[in-house]
């Protein structure tokens, strides 16, 4: 059993993360230097966790969606909407908890709307979520009336920039959410049902799985995650920017999920590995930034890194190396 656990650590995602961190360390020897200051940890590595949190949170919801053979393009726009809701409400004088709950509720409603289009009206997910991807920014602008709504609410700001046990709040929230969602999915039958729908929706429905309800749940969760990410981003800059909040982050989230080994064709999925994927992406971003390269390099290096990681996951390369094939050889004990 021990051996099995060790082998499980040798998955492509963690190896890739180690490689990225190693390169960062070589290019910028101070990468892992962490200091304690004002009751919290500071350093580039901590920064990776903090900056990577929004995409990691999006990736948690996106994993479920992609596992059902869907995709959610609207999460960036939902972030903007929910950030706008939270910001305008605290500015209008509502108590912070009410504003946060309202923003989360709006995110869930947006997600359920996507779920309705996909599950009930049977619209292809890429088109169904494109609707809100486009319309969401408009809605966010209507809410903020075209301005960047800034606020000074201390509770909200604490959610974005505070710390718990020295770790940035955003990272703590992402970690807690990851653990919660993973536990729910693993401890209930929901994980199995999500996989079944992703592998073969008609067979799953014939086997008695309520695929509509499950798709609503999955898209609703994605909306909920986007709402959390939206609140975090708004709280971080102390303002809701309808135009730029969460812009293109849906693509990073999809990428994180794919790096995490969940196939766009649906089926087997892993939420923790998708979070690792998000951290890999952020580690690259931060690495390029702190090691003094021009930010323009960022996109190109990112693309090269993605190709490398995806190649490691390709069955062809995997069998050529023979190293990552770990599950086929186990013999069942009778």
């Amino acid at each position, binding site marked *: 059993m021990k051996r099995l656990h060790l082998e499980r650590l040798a998955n492509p995602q963690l190896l890739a993360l180690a490689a990225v961190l190693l390169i960062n360390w070589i290019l910028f020897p101070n990468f892992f230097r962490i200091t304690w200051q004002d009751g919290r940890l500071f350093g580039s590595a901590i920064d990776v966790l903090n900056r990577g949190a929004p995409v990691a949170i999006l990736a948690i919801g996106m994993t479920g969606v992609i596992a059902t053979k869907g995709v959610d393009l609207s999460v960036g726009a939902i972030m903007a909407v929910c950030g706008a809701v939270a910001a305008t409400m605290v500015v209008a004088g509502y108590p912070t908890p009410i504003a946060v709950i309202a923003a989360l509720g709006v995110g869930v409603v947006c997600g359920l709307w996507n779920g309705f289009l996909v599950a009930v009206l049977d619209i292809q997910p890429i088109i169904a979520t494109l609707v809100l991807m486009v319309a969401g920014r408009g809605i966010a602008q209507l809410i903020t009336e075209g301005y960047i709504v800034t606020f000074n609410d201390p509770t909200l700001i604490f959610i974005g920039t505070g710390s718990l046990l020295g770790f940035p709040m955003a990272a703590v929230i992402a970690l807690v959410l990851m653990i919660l969602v993973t536990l729910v999915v693993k401890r209930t*039958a929901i994980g199995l049902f999500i996989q079944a729908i992703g592998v*073969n929706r008609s*067979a799953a429905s014939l086997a*008695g799985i*309520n695929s509509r309800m499950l798709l609503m749940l999955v898209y609703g969760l994605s909306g909920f995650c986007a709402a959390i990410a939206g609140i975090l981003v708004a709280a971080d800059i102390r303002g809701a920017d309808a135009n730029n909040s969460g812009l293109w982050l849906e693509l990073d989230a999809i990428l994180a999920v794919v790096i995490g080994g969940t196939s766009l064709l649906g089926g087997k999925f892993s939420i923790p590995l998708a979070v690792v994927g998000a951290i890999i992406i952020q580690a690259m971003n931060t690495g390029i930034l702190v090691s003094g390269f021009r930010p323009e390099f960022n996109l190109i290096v990112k693309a090269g890194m993605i190709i490398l990681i995806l190649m490691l996951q390709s069955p062809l390369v995997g069998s050529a190396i023979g190293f990552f094939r770990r599950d086929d050889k186990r013999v069942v004990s009778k």
Partner: protein
Amino acid sequence: MADTHYVLEARGIMKIFGNHVALDNIDFGLKAGEVHALLGENGAGKSTLIKILTGAYQPDGGGIYVDGAQVSLDNPLHAQTFGIGTVYQEVNLLPNRSVAENLFLGHQPLRFGFVNFRKMEADARVILKNYDLNIDPSSELGSHSVAVQQIVAIARAVQLSGKVLILDEPTASLDRNEVERLFEVVLGLKARGLAIIFITHFLDQVFAISDRVTVLRNGKLIETRALDALSRTDVVRLMLGKDIAFSGATDVEPSEAPNEVLLEFKGYGRKRSVLPFDLTIHKGEVVGVAGLLGSGRTEVARIMFGADPADQGTVRVNGQPTAIRKATDAIKHGFGFCPEDRKAEGILGDLSVRENIVIALQGKLGWFKALNRDEQMEIAGRFGESMDIRAASLDMPVKLLSGGNQQKVILSRWLATDPAFLILDEPTRGIDVGAHAEIVRTINRLRDEGMAMLVISSELDEVVAYSSRIVVMRDREMVAELRGKNINPGVIVQAIANNPDEAVA
């Protein structure tokens, strides 16, 4: 006219896929001015032959002759230049373009290099008149009924080729009036001297318009005959290869006092799918369903299970009226369903054997009463053993198993839910002999344990062997119910072929 003059002829056609002989030395001749039905069950080689006649496939042996001269057809477009056109079951046109554009797509009348719409629509009007179609050529094709679209497709094929017309199940999605409309068109073309090949699963339609019939079975030519010398029974016998003198009386005792009634379907049906039927199913009874492919067998199974909900009629389970609108409703009442298309609707290919077996039970338990891994292993292991599922590991993806083992997995999936009523659609199709025997054994065992079953199968010997009763489907209608000691494949063949007097044994 000499009988030997064929517009289109195939001699000694061979087609081999891998080491499977799809067509074995087929001779086929088509005369001008005839409607020639091409019949055979699935896998008999009909579509392979059609693909060779239209140039989509190249034969591995033999030759194709048009008006007596040997030709080689490179592709369907090339076949068109020899006058051979095809209309498929699904209309292969552009629904969002006008009727006229569809008629002339690819060879529109041009003027200064631009499409001359006025001439095109005028020409289209002339063509449509030939078919008694009074529609506006500039209207969108998709705005018309499937039947009209089908006629437009025929008109286009005739316009382009004009000598041989191949109709591949053109009536599959039409209702009765529409079929008649289509037949008028076909008979009109026949009168104009076209040679027409007609492929369908509906025997009535064969007898309604065909002059001759060619029957294929397992890639071999069985017979080409003039239809007026044949009865329906003869045709069914040719297709299924069953000798009418076959003696295979059922070994099931006809229970004079049957067990309690489990299910009562009354006037149960679905538009464009199955005509309303009445059927009562008792506990401990296997109801066999016989009928040709496309007769509505699978549709009956699907509406019973709620996969396609019924839109008329009522169902009682244990005497209680209820509604089965979707699969989960059916499962709640203890139904299980092994679909015909294992790969598309049965297995969850990438998931493990274990997950495939527990999925229906877990679906019944709901989201929160999750079976843990050990429980799953226990259930999967139990059925793996009792059903003799040959898998290297219960954790391997089910898609790596053989067809027979996949079928056992799906059967196990339902047995795990402890069903009261099991619907099996072609449970033994395409599986090896060993698995076949195992599944037949299981059906017998479950019946003896008191489970009710509905089993659809093309294997008549097999249906006879395990069924307590047999219902016969023809043209989407439940036409006969056979019971008693004297059920044998011959009787079923007669019932399929519509011989009501002889059918009641």
